[in-house]
């Protein structure tokens, strides 16, 4: 009951955020976005045809009317069909989001698991050689551009100039084997780039928690290292970790890995959204923005509930 009340309150409190996100995005992407008119006209249009298309696209209506229509679409979650392809937006999202999630998830999980493991080792051997090596590598990893990593990895792993182990591009997934073969190189690239950041993050979180007074207390009462680490310290470290992971969720779902999708030709939502921005495909943009805002509110709610589960000091009131 408390949880339900809390959820309702939190969702209501999310309304300003939804309004803000949709308003700003609408303004930028839709209202001031690229003009779709001339994509929909042939090589030799007449002024009349131009006027017809503009009318159809709603460019002639005032801002508030258009935003109002958007809000109505938002409430019913009915955004119509893509202006470029005619595909209903809902089916476009249903088609592309799973691909993006499937693409991003392994890298995300591996990146974080490895980050925790390396962060733990670095924290454990703090000041020692292992720490210096791990953190030095992290600094190097953080300094290499994602773009360079993608280009290099594609050549190394996928091309006939390199190991030629994986498909160069595409996403033709019918089985686990297909999935593994398509997802490996993008995952390696993601992990490579994310690892530096993750390791630093987890190391600092763990070091921070290790230096707490209550850890000293626990040691003063003879708690052995294993329960100390995996029970006492980790549970405290969960708050920043939860925050980091939860707030990555909307990004994974919505923007996916645009660069990866672009470079590896993977039909995910990141590329679909980017294409929509580039071509001014209003219905797709509206839907993606709305979805982002709603996801955010839900994620914030879930995060708070998780905080509560982990930290008794957090109240749902």
């Amino acid at each position, binding site marked *: 009951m408390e949880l339900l009340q809390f959820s309702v309150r939190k969702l209501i409190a999310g309304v300003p955020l939804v309004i803000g996100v949709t308003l700003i*995005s609408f303004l930028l992407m839709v209202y001031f976005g690229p003009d779709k008119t001339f994509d929909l006209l042939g090589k030799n249009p007449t002024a009349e045809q131009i006027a017809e298309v503009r009318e159809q696209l709603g460019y002639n209506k005032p801002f508030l009317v258009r935003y109002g229509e958007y809000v109505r679409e938002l409430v019913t979650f009915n955004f119509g069909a893509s202006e470029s392809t005619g595909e209903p937006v809902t089916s476009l999202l249903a088609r592309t989001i799973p691909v993006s999630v499937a693409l991003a998830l392994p890298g995300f999980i591996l990146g974080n698991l490895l980050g925790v493991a390396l962060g733990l080792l670095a924290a454990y051997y703090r000041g020692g050689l292992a720490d210096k090596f791990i953190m030095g590598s992290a600094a*190097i990893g953080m*300094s290499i551009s*994602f773009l360079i990593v993608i280009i290099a990895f594609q050549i190394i792993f996928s091309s006939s100039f390199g190991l030629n182990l994986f498909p160069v591009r595409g996403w033709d997934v019918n089985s686990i084997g297909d999935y593994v073969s398509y997802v490996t190189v993008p995952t390696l690239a993601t992990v490579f780039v994310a690892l530096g950041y993750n390791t630093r993050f987890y190391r600092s979180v763990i070091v921070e928690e290790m230096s707490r007074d209550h850890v000293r207390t626990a040691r003063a009462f003879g708690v052995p290292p294993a329960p100390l680490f995996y029970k006492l310290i980790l549970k405290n470290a969960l708050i920043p970790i939860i925050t980091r992971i939860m707030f990555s969720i909307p990004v994974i779902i919505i923007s996916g890995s*645009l660069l990866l999708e672009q470079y590896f030709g993977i039909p995910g939502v990141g590329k679909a959204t*980017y294409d929509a*921005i580039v071509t001014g495909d209003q219905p797709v943009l509206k839907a993606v923005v709305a979805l982002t805002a709603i996801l955010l509110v839900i994620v914030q709610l879930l995060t708070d509930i998780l905080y509560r589960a982990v930290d008794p000091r957090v109240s749902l009131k």
Partner: protein
Amino acid sequence: MNAQPPASDTIAAPPERRESLWTKAAYKFRRDRVGVWSLAVVLVYMAIALGVVFGWWATSWAELEGGKWEPPSAEHWFGTNIIGQDIFDRAIYSTRTSFEVGLVVAILATALGAVLGALAGFFSGSWTDEIILWFMGVLDSIPFILFVAAIAYSLGDTPYAMHVAMISTFWITAGRLVRGEVIKLRGQEYVEAAHAIGVPELTIIFRHVLPNTSHILLVQATITFVAAIKSEVILSFLGIGVKDGMSWGLMIAESTQEVLAGFFNNFLAASVLLFGLVMAFNLFSDALQDALDPRTVAES
């Protein structure tokens, strides 16, 4: 490091520990070998960039000086590109672009973050704070690359679209940090004293409180600088970055079509220089952070 708080009038002097923070930091920084070396590298890059600004070198980056894809030679150290431009000149010229992007974005984003963060922090709990927090939350919520793309496209052909896009997202971190710090500082005696004798609130904020967050701002600016340089590369690759001139991102974008043919000159020139600058700046930023962090005194 002369970012010390400006000398203030007698009434509400900032606490003395600030002075010692900066001198201590300078002391600690000088002892950090990695930090000093990385700063040296950054300064070398900066000198290169300044040289470009003053027209001492890389002036002929746009000229067609040779044939298509000439290999490295005494005349063209990194060879030439597809239309016969000197890759070395272009890579050097791009240093300037990077610094320009990095500095503009770092300074303006940090400044914006400082001002809005200070306002929000000082008036925390009020409507001002609520609105600024809301704004931060909203901007934070839109996926970065899509947001930047949207700004870049909606500003169309403006040469500074990319800068605007980055500034409008990067200020948020600085803003949040400053807000937190100002909330802490607000409770301090010298602020209350200033209040008590009727110093106007804006004067308190900008003359007495904000300068005391300068160590945070400095570190944040270096982090933003790196982020801006790295983002420039990706945005330029996507075609929404640098509009006028040349940059490492554009060179890498150019190289994606060449590497498979074995023309690595563009790719190597740009990525090595980029890596060097980012790495040096990252290490410099770390060292700076350590030096300015009072908790790291006893650390090895």
